[in-house]
């Protein structure tokens, strides 16, 4: 029942946006409020899971399922969704978009959100695949909201690379299913995750290896793991601000979730070693690529995108570091969601004021928009892992897990790469914050509402940096139990 509350609001919202023409500000408000219902449902699931309750299932052939892992993802997705919907264009009278554009925006973003929610609540890995493919399609429609050369280019690269990747993931899924079928005949529910997992120990290692390669490369493309990350900086920097916030905040995490689901199954077949090796290799590669790309990046939105790649790589490494690592990675995922969605939205404000994405074009931010500047600084310092923000703790836990599992050299490398990114980001940040603002840029802060909303993220980050609420900790432990059995 709760599943309906989780999934339907966004569908209704999409329908609303589609049916009411021309666009009215009312639609924006209603959709935003609707998203709260989904959030409530997600929280309910999370609470249930944290209490250690059995995972509820729903629908024909147990289509949907919400164990701890799904619940956490649901909360992240729903939270970011409602944040973004509340900060979407088209609330006030004036907006840089035309009504038709706003209508398109409202329609697709809600479908996008719906497909992400479906991904994380799907029980059947096939359905999961379909949903993820859907996220690509809907978001690709949104990127060229205003037709510019760069936005079109970005969307084309995005949809082509990701569709190919996802197609490969489907091949992987087929192979997994094939192995199951050859073992125990055809079955309707064979693609249901628990069933798959139950029969996993007796599957053929050779086949599962191949399957996992397809899946990792496929879903990894979507998750922005190097070297399949190349679409990410373009898409994230060219998409409308709310979309890039959602993509960077949760879409990557959702794709990573898919990888994780399969990792569990494959591990059950072959033991952890194999998948861990692959994840560490690609994760480290992503770290290298991302942190060095930040050093020379001239465009702040691209810088943020690269930092997302960096953190995805970090999470991959974390997932490969045993229970402690999984705990750290999941914590990191939540923190990163909070931080990145905020920083992208703030970057949008900066862009709106300065009309440039070049770092050197933005100066004296502290003078022109103190509030935004302060929060941007907080967000960026959080992303590079400074106390008292959550990412400090999670990165810390991750490193610790690495040392505990006897990988000091790997962790040394990670620490150094993080340091490189740290210095680079600080340098870029300072260049934006200080100095004299260019002439023609209005001085003074506007739009207190969004800042107020974003301060929720800051609050969350600080809370997670100072303490770990008991229910949250339980939830994470549940996840660890699910992932590393």
């Amino acid at each position: 029942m709760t599943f309906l509350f989780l999934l339907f609001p966004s569908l209704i919202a999409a329908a609303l946006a589609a049916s009411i023409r021309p666009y009215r500000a009312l639609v924006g408000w209603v959709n935003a409020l609707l998203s709260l219902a989904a959030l409530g449902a997600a929280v309910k699931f999370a609470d249930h899971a944290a209490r250690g309750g059995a995972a509820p299932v729903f629908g024909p052939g147990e289509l949907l399922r919400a164990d701890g892992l799904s619940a956490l993802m649901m909360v992240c997705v729903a939270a970011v969704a409602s944040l973004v919907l509340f900060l979407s264009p088209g609330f006030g009278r004036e907006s840089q978009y035309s009504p038709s554009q706003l209508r398109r925006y409202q329609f697709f973003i809600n479908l996008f959100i719906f497909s992400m929610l479906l991904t994380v609540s799907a029980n059947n890995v096939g359905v999961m695949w379909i949903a993820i493919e859907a996220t690509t399609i809907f978001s690709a429609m949104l990127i060229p909201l205003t037709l510019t050369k760069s936005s079109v280019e970005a969307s084309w690269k995005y949809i082509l690379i990701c569709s190919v990747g996802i197609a490969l993931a489907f091949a992987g899924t087929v192979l997994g299913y094939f192995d199951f079928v050859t073992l125990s005949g055809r079955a309707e529910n064979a693609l249901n995750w628990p069933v798959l997992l139950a029969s996993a120990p007796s599957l053929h290692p050779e086949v599962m290896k191949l399957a996992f390669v397809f899946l990792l490369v496929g879903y990894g493309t979507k998750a922005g793991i190097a070297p399949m990350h190349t679409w990410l900086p373009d898409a994230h920097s060219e998409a409308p601000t709310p979309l890039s916030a959602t993509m960077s905040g949760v879409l990557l995490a959702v794709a990573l979730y898919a990888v994780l689901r399969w990792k569990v199954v494959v591990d059950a077949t072959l033991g952890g070693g194999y998948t861990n090796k692959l994840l560490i290799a690609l994760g480290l590669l992503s770290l290298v690529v991302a942190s060095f790309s930040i050093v020379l990046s001239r465009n702040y939105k691209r810088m943020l995108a690269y930092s997302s790649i960096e953190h995805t790589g970090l999470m991959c490494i974390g997932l490969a570091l045993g229970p402690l690592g999984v705990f750290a990675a999941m914590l990191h995922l939540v923190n990163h969601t909070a931080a990145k969605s905020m920083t992208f939205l703030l970057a949008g404000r900066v862009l709106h004021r300065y009309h440039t994405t070049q770092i050197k074009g933005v100066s004296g931010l502290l003078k022109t928009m103190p509030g935004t500047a302060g929060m941007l600084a907080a967000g960026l310092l959080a992303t590079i892992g400074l106390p008292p923000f959550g990412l400090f703790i999670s990165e810390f836990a991750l490193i610790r897990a690495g040392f505990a599992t006897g990988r000091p050299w790997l962790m040394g490398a990670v620490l150094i790469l993080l340091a490189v990114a740290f210095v680079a980001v600080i340098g870029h940040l300072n260049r934006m914050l200080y100095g004299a603002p260019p002439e023609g840029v209005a001085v003074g802060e506007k739009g207190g509402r969004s800042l107020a909303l974003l301060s929720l993220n800051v609050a969350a980050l600080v809370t997670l940096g100072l303490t770990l609420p008991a229910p949250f900790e339980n939830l994470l432990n549940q996840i660890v139990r699910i992932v590393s059995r």
Partner: protein
Amino acid sequence: MMTLFIVMISAYAAGAPGALLIGRGAFGRGVAALGACAGSAAGLAFGMSAIVSGRSFTLVSAWGLPGVDLMTRLDGLSAFFLIIIGLLGLAVAVYGYGYSVSYERRYSLRMLGAMLNTLLLSLSLLVVADNALTFLISWELMSLSAYWLVLTEHDGAETVRAGVWYIAMTHAGFVALVAMFLLMSGGDLTTSFAGMRANAAVLSPASRNAVFLLALFGYGSKAGIVPLHVWLPMAHPVAPSHVSALMSGVVIKTGIYGLVRVALDLLGGGPVWWGGVVLGVGAVSALLGVLYALMEHDLKRLLAYHSVENIGIILIGVGAGMIFHGYGLMTLAALGFVGGLYHTLNHATFKGLLFLGAGSVLHATHTRNMEEMGGLIKRMPVTALCFLIGAAAISALPPLNGFASEWIVFQSLLEGFNIPKPEVAMIMPIAVGMLALTGGLAVACFVKAFGVTFLAIPRSQEAEHAKEAPLSMRAGMALLALACVALGLAPFAVVPVMGGMLAGLGRLPDTRMDFTLGLSLASPNGFAKMSPALVAAGLLILLCLTPLVMLLLRVNRKLRVSDSWGCGRIGQTPRMEYTATAFAEPLRRVFAELYRPAKELTIDFHPESKYFVQSIEYRSEITPWFEKYLYDPCLWFVRLLAATVRRLQSGSLSAYLVYGAVTLLILLLIARM
């Protein structure tokens, strides 16, 4: 006891948000200063009472937050550093009240006050931390608050650059420290230091060495040892002067604290070469620090380089102690450590004093360039006197505190002949030579600094119209000046206490007895005796006696004031004075090999005849050695890598797809193997 601790913490903790909320105006500055004052006073009292009682006890274990359990414990060493923090914090807070007036409506006073309190809080937590997590968190908090303080006057490009350098260096150090603690604790950072001690004992020699080297790097980058010192001369000048005093006096000392804590306490000492490395690094830092200071004409940069020098001297003492420790000569080891730590305390006082003095000068003349100062001794007498005391102290002149601690360091080096191996023992005389040269050059440098800044005729309008600093600033300086004198006169009281304080760290004996409480300070096994107090008394008597005798002998007491004699030329202008550059010229020539000065002399003659010179312009700058030969290559390398990685993102869609396809094929093939 407990109450004092709570008072300290809560005062800082109240001061920070208080300043943040009220911020501006006399009241806001007052709130900030009050929080800092109360906190540091409490800390001072706390440390005193603890160190005198000589007991070490757990303050609070596992307080605050689930998941992150902070553990704090106070032993002699922590108490000692608490005293340093308290003493300097007090002076700085008082001084800052007056100094930050000039920041009103120019820079964010809220940030300044809040961060100052945060910095003091994190420092105090840092030295009482009892597990790695607490230590690292407060370490990072300290670095950050210091970073924001450095960026206070953020509208200068120089300032921002300095900030980035500072945060980069300190973060590199932080990374090393994280790795070190993880190595030492086997992954669990919440284990108390006691547990870590036990754990470190069973580590393999290789990993013990790794821990030591990581510690040296991590703490060295904070302490500013050569070649990790580059951020000091950038960050200290641009920070507000009382912050510079705090950073130079206390923040960089946390590096020393950490090194002693880890190398001596947690690791329980190590092989002799550890000590050798520390000693060598110290000697080099001392010498290079003072040599670069000599060439500086920016008063605060000069002082910053002297911080490098004094960190070097401290490390010489510590290193000697570690060497002796390695040979099991425990009493001598104690002597070395006492020397180093005593100098830590002393440097905190006189360097703090000097930075505050420089701040007053800056406050009055609005320039840091010594070439535009002069004659200030008549316009700001109190500042001049305080600065003179500081200068004499840092030049290790008796009877001030610099002399007392350097004497002990010297003694510990002289005792080097007790080392069984002559080839090792031969390190000591060389160190003695370098230390002595450092001392001599320091004297030269501070003759320059004081003479050019305060004496003779003003070289600029600002200096001409300089006004004495307001009361609060003078009070802050006076406090530290008194501390300099007191610590100089009473080492016989301080040193035994420190001997007791070190007892037990790394199996050091309680050497309280070896350092007699008599008036004269004696090094162990009666190697040498010296009593600054009596020397001071003697000097004082003679200073009074001489005029008295002259009075009795009825010498001519007439005094006529007139022009100074200059080979018959009339009138004297500032341009005739000896400049700081000229003053340092002989030494620049002597050490030309190191400085590699780039000179350029442009003379343009009168068009008629070349015997009439219209103007002579002489410019000469020295090569910043480390930036050029160490850091530039590193940066170049990083940029190279970055440029290479950049090429991946070529913009060509097909290339992107190829990456994916190739990855897929490679992984598939790997999977088949």
